[in-house]
């Protein structure tokens, strides 16, 4: 099986899952015992006004028809509109998504930079002090409620120490860089605007650090476990026997083997952190999907919630496909298996 076919097959497998997801989110939005129309139309709306609302949003049609319309909308880029703000969901997502993506990516990078070395050290000093310390620290930090830790860090680093801004992506007076990707760090680099780059990096750091703690433990654990397994392989013994320095064995041969499992866990963590970002964003006033999602869910505004769920599903699937491709490239046995 060549690599192109492998990739195509992997993509084809995702489609039924995403259709299933759209059915799931649609069903969730229609089991609402609350009365979203009543909420949106206001407490004094007459039955006629509510009826008009229902007609406008197509809520008077039979469910299968409603679903087909919804599905057709999804495919044609019409993801419905918010009952409240009357804005198009897809436009809102376009505005808010890059902020969440930037935050999550930064957090995953930090978690990897902390977690992989911690796992490597744990494996090298297996069952000795550094191993125990890394293990306790990772469990210690992953146990904090992230939104709570975010408040504490915001106060320490932002207010008391004054080292970092307390929230938002940029100060009010700094105009955001011309949008190419919506990621401020990349956009400012494209514009060669290094001041804005540094300012937005400082804004990004603390939220991303707090978010990264959620992924630290699992990345450390899997790196350690697969390192330990790889260290016991025959080739390591052979390499040691012919006198290759231990450090070179670790970094050149063992780590490369062990990282395959780590990559899976990192990509899984990307999805989890993307969800965790919802909580962190509300604390740091980070204008991403989080605040949008929270407001929508509290006011039973279902089009945005469904939109977010679908977006997350698509992004997560894309990440999984990319992971599988990386896998297939790294390890031909999977591709041909």
């Amino acid at each position, binding site marked *: 099986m060549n690599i192109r076919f492998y990739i195509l097959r992997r993509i084809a497998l995702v489609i*039924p*899952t*995403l259709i*299933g*997801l759209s059915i*799931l*989110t649609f069903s*969730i*939005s229609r*089991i*609402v*015992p*609350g009365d979203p129309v009543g909420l949106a139309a206001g407490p004094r709306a007459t039955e006629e006004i509510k009826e008009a609302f229902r007609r406008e949003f197509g809520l008077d049609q039979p469910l299968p028809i409603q679903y087909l319309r919804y599905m057709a909308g999804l495919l044609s880029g019409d993801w419905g509109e918010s009952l409240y703000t009357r804005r198009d969901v897809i436009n809102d997502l376009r505005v808010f998504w890059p902020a969440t993506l930037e935050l999550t990516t930064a957090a995953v990078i930090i978690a990897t930079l902390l977690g992989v070395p911690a796992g490597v050290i744990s494996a090298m000093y*297996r069952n000795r002090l550094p191993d*125990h310390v890394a*293990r*306790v620290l990772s*469990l*210690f930090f*992953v*146990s*904090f*409620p*992230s*939104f*709570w*830790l975010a*408040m*504490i860090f915001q*106060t320490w680093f932002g*207010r008391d120490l004054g080292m970092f801004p307390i929230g938002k992506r940029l100060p009010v007076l700094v105009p955001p860089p011309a949008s190419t990707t919506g990621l401020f760090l990349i956009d400012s680099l494209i514009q060669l605007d290094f001041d804005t780059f540094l300012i937005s990096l400082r804004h990004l750091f603390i939220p991303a650090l707090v978010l990264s703690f959620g992924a630290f*433990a699992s990345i450390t654990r899997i790196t350690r*476990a697969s390192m*330990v397994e790889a260290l016991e392989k025959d080739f390591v013994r052979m390499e040691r026997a012919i006198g290759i320095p231990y450090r070179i064995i670790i970094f050149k041969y063992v780590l490369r083997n062990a990282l395959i499992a780590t990559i899976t866990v990192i990509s899984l963590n990307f*999805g*989890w952190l*993307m*969800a*965790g970002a*919802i*909580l962190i964003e*509300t604390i740091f006033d980070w204008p991403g999907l989080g605040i949008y*999602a*929270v407001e929508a*869910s*509290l006011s*039973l505004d*279902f089009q945005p*919630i*469904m939109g*977010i*769920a679908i977006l*997350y*599903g698509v992004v*997560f*699937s894309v990440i999984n496909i990319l992971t599988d491709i990386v896998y297939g490239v790294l390890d031909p046995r999977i591709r041909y298996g």
Partner: protein
Amino acid sequence: MADLPAIEVEKPKSARSARWENIARGLYRFRSNKLSMLGLAMLIFIVLVAIFAPVIAPYPEDAAGKTRVTARLQPPSEDFAFGTDKIGRDIFSRVVMGTGLALQVGTVIILLATTIGVTIGAISGYAGGWLDDLLMRVTDIFLTVPALVLAIAISAALGKGIINTMIGISLVWWPGFARLTRSLVLSLREEPFVEAAYGIGAGHLRIIFRHILPNAVSPIIIKMTTDFGFAVLTAAALGFIGLGAQPPTPEWGAMINDGRRYFPDEWWIATFPGLAIWLMVFSWNLIGDGLRDVLDPRSRR
């Protein structure tokens, strides 16, 4: 040929006693792991606090929303160890009274998720064929979206409140258990003792419940323990967002949300519930980590 002396091999008297021996050995290994013993001690402490909450809390009626207008936003003092909130309720009493709730929330979520997940996973792995395909596709759908996002959507749809939160979280939590159980059943199904049971005419249910599942218990228990803390965290997150427990319920996440507006000047309102959540989650994580070593020797070498 001379009579060979009979070789005495000490056989376990029954399958049950062999299992007990395993458990005893596991307990010994768990006990020798200081960190998990620390986690267990913390958990026992938490359970005791939950049981004796009405005795420990100086103002147990504050959990039900009794207000004390004269003592609003008091910093920690002799009267109010953790200070008071915006309507003068004693934070210490509310944290203590909320302990049982947090334990219940975690227990309900994990038991529900395990029940659903193990059933679906066992059917899927044992039946195979189209049923397996169908169930796994459904599981995949749930796994495409991060649990927290779906939990938010379902809890919002069901309506605010702690019960709906628990239902919502359970409904997104089972796929992990289903996947795990299925993979265990798939490998156990091929074991000779299952084939033997089948050969002597045991029924499917008997094979699943008497022969397959008992051998799949360890990994499932590990997952239940490690997941417990995260289930509590997720419930607290929904409480923090405002979807979970509603006032005046002393739910820790909702209490943090309450104290958010007063943070950091009146830091005590949000800080202590947060530490309580951390203690609970940390204890479960330590125990889960230790159990993983005991029950799955490969994970810790």
